[in-house]
């Protein structure tokens, strides 16, 4: 934690985006997390992604629950909407906000405690409903705020800082998200912004439930030998299946890679994801194969990262419900209370 505010002075070469904002304009308050916390790197990646996507700060809502990770929305996008919910309840509040105003970009930020323990049910239902959101879990495999107990994502056999061995099975958030029907699933690492920033950008542009499991070492309680969420462990066991090199708008794509090296994914809104293949035969649009691949590599002790699955033609909760295109909170009294005649008509249709 730091007592002084980050000075306003910036590098003279700092460039503005299309809106005239610099990257610094997307920052929030100075972090109160421990020095070196992986979560701060994720905050920096979110700032970079929002800046590069030219997101108008007032068009984005960031929601979180309780925990170290859930504190971080205070440290980025200081000019955006924020909601800090009770523990594990971020997904419901986000779902409600999304239903009321479908026009905002929704960013849910949570941790392994908030999403895999107390909020597991909430997590599951927001994913299976296909709420249009980016859901980032800052996963450090430990309860940092309460000084280092194992969390639900700690791997069986890994050791705590005091040397205690974890006997419980780990919840794998990525496998869960795939099974629950998330239409964009990725895993990344706080220590690799080159991978993380494009993934966050793609997720923010994805229509539907986009989930990113981001391994984020806890410097204070989970960065020792024996941990499987430490900088060293993740760097040694990281197996990236692909690299999201560019995310292009509606512009045509010029081929820069030999055939077979590149996978292009065209999304609903016209965005095109250019994925450079690292693992041969990995197809990020095949959900069943992706699940199989994940289980296989996990059994071999690898941490698979990259864009693991994307459904380019995904639909979201509003599509399923058939809501009007106008956000509900923008509808007037006339639309919301059509009167007795309309009610009679509905009643008649049900007789």
């Amino acid at each position: 934690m730091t007592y002084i505010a980050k000075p306003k002075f910036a590098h003279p070469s700092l460039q503005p985006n299309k809106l005239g904002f610099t990257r610094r304009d997307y920052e929030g308050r100075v972090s109160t997390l421990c020095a070196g916390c992986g979560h701060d790197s994720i905050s920096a990646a979110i700032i970079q992604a929002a800046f590069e996507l030219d997101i108008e700060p007032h068009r984005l809502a960031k929601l979180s629950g309780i925990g170290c990770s859930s504190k971080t929305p205070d440290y980025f996008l200081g000019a955006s909407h924020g909601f800090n919910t009770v523990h594990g309840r971020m997904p419901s509040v986000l779902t409600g906000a999304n239903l009321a105003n479908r026009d905002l970009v929704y960013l849910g930020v949570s941790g392994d405690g908030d999403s895999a323990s107390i909020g597991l049910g909430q997590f599951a239902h927001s994913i299976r409903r296909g709420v249009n959101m980016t859901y980032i879990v800052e996963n450090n495999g430990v309860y940092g705020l309460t000084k280092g107990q194992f969390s639900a994502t700690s791997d069986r056999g890994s050791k705590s800082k005091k040397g205690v061995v974890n006997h419980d099975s780990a919840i794998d958030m990525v496998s869960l998200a795939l099974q629950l029907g998330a239409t964009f699933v990725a895993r990344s690492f706080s220590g690799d912004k080159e991978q993380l920033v494009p993934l966050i950008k793609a997720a923010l542009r994805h229509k539907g439930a986009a989930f990113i499991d981001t391994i984020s070492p806890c410097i204070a309680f989970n960065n020792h030998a024996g941990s499987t969420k430490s900088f060293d462990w993740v760097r040694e066991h990281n197996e990236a299946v692909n690299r999201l090199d560019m995310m292009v708008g509606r512009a045509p794509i010029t081929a820069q890679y030999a055939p077979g090296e590149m996978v292009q994914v065209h999304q609903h809104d016209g965005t095109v994801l250019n994925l450079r293949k690292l693992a041969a035969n990995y197809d990020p649009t095949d959900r069943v194969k992706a699940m199989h691949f994940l289980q296989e590599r996990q059994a071999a002790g690898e941490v698979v990262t990259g864009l693991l699955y994307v459904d380019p033609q995904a639909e979201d909760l509003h599509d399923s419900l058939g809501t009007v295109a106008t956000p509900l909170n923008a509808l007037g009294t006339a639309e919301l209370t059509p009167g007795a005649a309309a009610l009679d008509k509905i009643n008649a249709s049900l007789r």
Partner: protein
Amino acid sequence: MEPTNTESPEHFHKVVDCQWACPAHTPVPEYIRMIAQGRYADAYMVNWRSNVFPGILGRTCDRPCEPACRRDRVEDQPVAICRLKRFAADNKGDLSDRMPAPAANWNGKTVACVGAGPASLTVARDLAPLGYRVVLFDRDAKGGGMIRSQIPRFRLPEEVIDEEVGFVTALGPELVLNKEVNSLKALLAEPYDAIFVGTGAPRGRDLDVPGRAEAAANIHIGIDWLSSVSFGHIEKIGRRVIVLGGGNTAMDCCRTSRRLGGEDVKVIVRSGFEEMKASPWEKEDAMHEGIPIHNFLVPKSFTHEDGKLTGVWFEKVAWQAGLDGRKALRPTGEPDQHFECDDVLVAIGQENSFPWIERDIGLEFNKWDMPVVGETTFQSTNPKVFFGGDSAFGPKNIIWAVAHGHEAAVSIDLYCRGQDTALRPPPGVTLASQKMGIHEWSYDNDVSLDERRKVPLLETSLALASVKAEVELGFDRELAYAETQRCLNCDVQTVFSAPACIECDACVDICPTDCITFTANGDEAEVRTRLKAPALNLTQDLYVSGSLPTGRVMVKDEDVCLHCGLCAERCPTGAWDMQKFLLTTTQAGGCR
């Protein structure tokens, strides 16, 4: 790129831009912090050790430190370093218990200094406490040299000169005043162990154009005229005055004229406004006093009637390429312009003048008729004779004279002890952590966003009423304190330890000015282009670590680092630390 060698002081010294730019290497941030703490006498003594004349320089220095100041690149105005120096001098209080005592015993060696200006006084200050008998000769009635003769009193009050020259003379050197040395040969014949020549650049350049001789009574050489004003021999000038020249002497001449009866005073310069040699603030001060500056006019002839000057003809010029393609100031072909005036002050440059040095005493002169002087030793080809100040390498300014004086004193001391003057003593360097707690530092790392403070001025009507009324009033305590807070503490260095780094990126994320990058090593020119913010200022070095576990290196561009210490505060392993770098030049008698 090879890892930066932080064992040698060079990298960190260059980071302290102000100290690096100061010829005398005054530790600027060190004394600015002392001023902030109200330790004005301490701040004065830090200055006094390095530059001998803090009160004088705080008013007259050419300030090479200010254009170098990092604040100038981060914001757009440097810290008012010079004004702060003056503030410390104005508020230092009694220093009698801090000044060195005169040497108790004579060491048997005697040194003569020709001229008692800033270079010679510096030599005397450095050598007298070591036991040397130092004898200073000067043609004027008081010590100080050009400080006293050429700088007008409204910029530098006489009491300030008396006090700071007095600090030197109190150390016991002998002053032989009103005595012009006419022969170096004769001086060499006397029993001096070494001779230091600090005679400055005493001859003002004249302008030999038609009418010069006929109108001589009203055409004055700038520095001679200023000297006569300083010593009270001249108290008036005509109503209409033209000052020729664009340097600081010209600015002193025009402003002095305004105070001696000149109502219509103008400066006329051959070059454009930007290329004028005068410091920007001196031009500003002149214009503030209602003195117009006319550019691109070359004097062609003086007009006169009955032996009295009536005006000057000028040819109009502009920067134009000639037949050889080189740009030069060439006539535009427009009709010449005539300016009427009663007096002309010629301030078009100064020259060295050594008619008193015989050419058969083993002292070589080069093709420009300047003595051949060692660049670091200040020793001439006659090993007993040393030069410094303007007489060594031509006209510069006071702070250079002081720097030369220190180095010459080191050489004289080495020479008198029979040692090699080429072996220069290394500087004293300390590098000490400023960490006091988890996020507490022994310096104020919170960066002030304030803009540069203006110094209060005496009201113009009062200022122009007397040649002795000091124009700049100096900062008061509040202004000085606020200005100290603008200093970025560039001497508190970001020191990186590669073995401790876990590459968590915390420093990269927090750095307000994007100075830090972890990246693959490469060729410097190429690495500079792919940092988090491109490192385009090639005068600023990159700080490069050894190889890290991921195979990358840490590269820090020192250019616009705020020295806020946030990298060190956010570092979980202490791989970054804020360490104060203090470099003190070694003066005569040190490091024996």
